[in-house]
């Protein structure tokens, strides 16, 4: 897996969408893979909660005939926590403050999910860009 590409995707989302404060990528079973979170957030706990919430939302959508689940969003008075499935095997959680434009967030996140999915499923034999001597971050 190309760690640097994954980190760039996550950080890119935070910088592209105004109001996104933290992101984390976890396996579907709740194990953290990567975190771009502030100090006051426990990324491991966030990953576990996100996996549980996504599983529950999936089952809810399935049991009530709502079709394929797009995302689940918890909205609080100080912002939102959106959880997106990355294929069948992983998920991404995005935290935003009150200002985040949800339509824009979903719009920007969808292509990023596809890219993150291919980064996660890339075979391990492909070396990360950072591991190749002389390669720079521009090759991401």
């Amino acid at each position: 897996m190309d760690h640097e590409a994954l980190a760039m995707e996550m950080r890119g989302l935070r910088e592209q969408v105004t109001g996104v404060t933290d992101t984390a990528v976890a396996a579907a079973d709740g194990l953290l893979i990567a975190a771009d979170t502030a100090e006051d957030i426990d990324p491991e706990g966030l990953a576990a909660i996100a996996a549980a919430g996504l599983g529950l939302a999936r089952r809810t959508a399935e049991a009530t005939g709502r079709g394929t689940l797009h995302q689940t969003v918890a909205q609080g008075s100080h912002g939102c926590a959106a959880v997106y499935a990355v294929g069948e095997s992983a998920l991404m959680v995005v935290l935003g403050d009150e200002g985040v434009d949800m339509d824009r967030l979903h719009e920007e996140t969808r292509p990023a999910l596809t890219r993150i999915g291919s980064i996660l499923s890339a075979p391990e034999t492909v070396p990360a860009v950072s591991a190749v001597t002389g390669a720079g971050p521009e090759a991401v």
Partner: protein
Amino acid sequence: MSDRRISLDRAGYGLLSRTLAECGREEATGELRVCGRPGGAFHLRGGLVVAVESPGAPGPEALLLRSGRISGEQWDGLLREPGAGRWPEAGLIAHGYAGAAQLRVVRMSALQDAVFAVVVGRVEGVRPLTAPSGAGPLAPVALGESPLRLLQEATRKLTALAALPWPVLPDRERPVPVPGADRDDPRLPPVRRDLLTHADGRRTARDLAFLTGRGVYPVTVEIARMLAEGLLQCADVPPTVLPVPVRVPSAGALLPLRREEPVAGEQQPERAGRPVRREQPVRLGELVRLGEPVPPERIARPDHPVQPDDAPPPPPPDRPPRQLPRRRPGASGITETLAAAHREASWKGFFRLRNRIWTPDSGT
């Protein structure tokens, strides 16, 4: 950063001011969406701007809630009152949480702050005026403002910001306190103490404005002054080109993720009539934690993977295929009741048991 200068996005500003002037001349009513970063929406009534919302500036609700003037519970209580709508102004005044004049100031300052956020950012396009959408703006001002006057006020603020010794853009700099800065120094004004507390190198002036419940313009100006006075500092390198640290969790590498893929030729019917899926372990890799320095020996490289001292626990050999969760006898912790059930031979005992072990998820 090498070039700290800030300047107006002239093309975008020109487009915005032309469109708004046209709306003003035609005394238009509706919503004007501005695309860009952060972008926003101008709500017009009779050619005057009654509300502006932008992801780049805290709205009236965020100003009230984040500043601690009102708690989330109090706000929820107000929204539940009949006729409260999304902006419970009458309830706020009736409960004494805020005065009418104070709320007028909050609404107007949020409006002007949002215009500043739109103008100081990048305007990529302005969509044609549309009819007021759905519920309309959250908290419109009673008497609208002239759009051009609002734009002039925003450019005046931008000019003032650009003239500071250390100009700052609301969404560019991510300051961090200088080492030794005392965030609890009682001589510092509250806004500076707040900014020193929350500035962590990840948050921009805009993020800090939301977090502290203050306008984005005053927070940006305060950050610019604190940078100039040496209370805050900015990393010279933009965060996007910083090296990405990779950390292996202390417990060793992550357990492999199991991906479920159907295996041709080995399909066996299960109870629900679906084929059984065999799980194939897929190694996803190690934990990546951004912004956290790591010792070099812990940096994992795919060509030289870090071998943890203690081997990761082996995955369970055969997990049950994906299916509806089934309750195992004893999983609920009421095994003694179940054990008693075997001794009960009559129907009466069955119904007694059913009533005793019923749980919301038992499916009965």
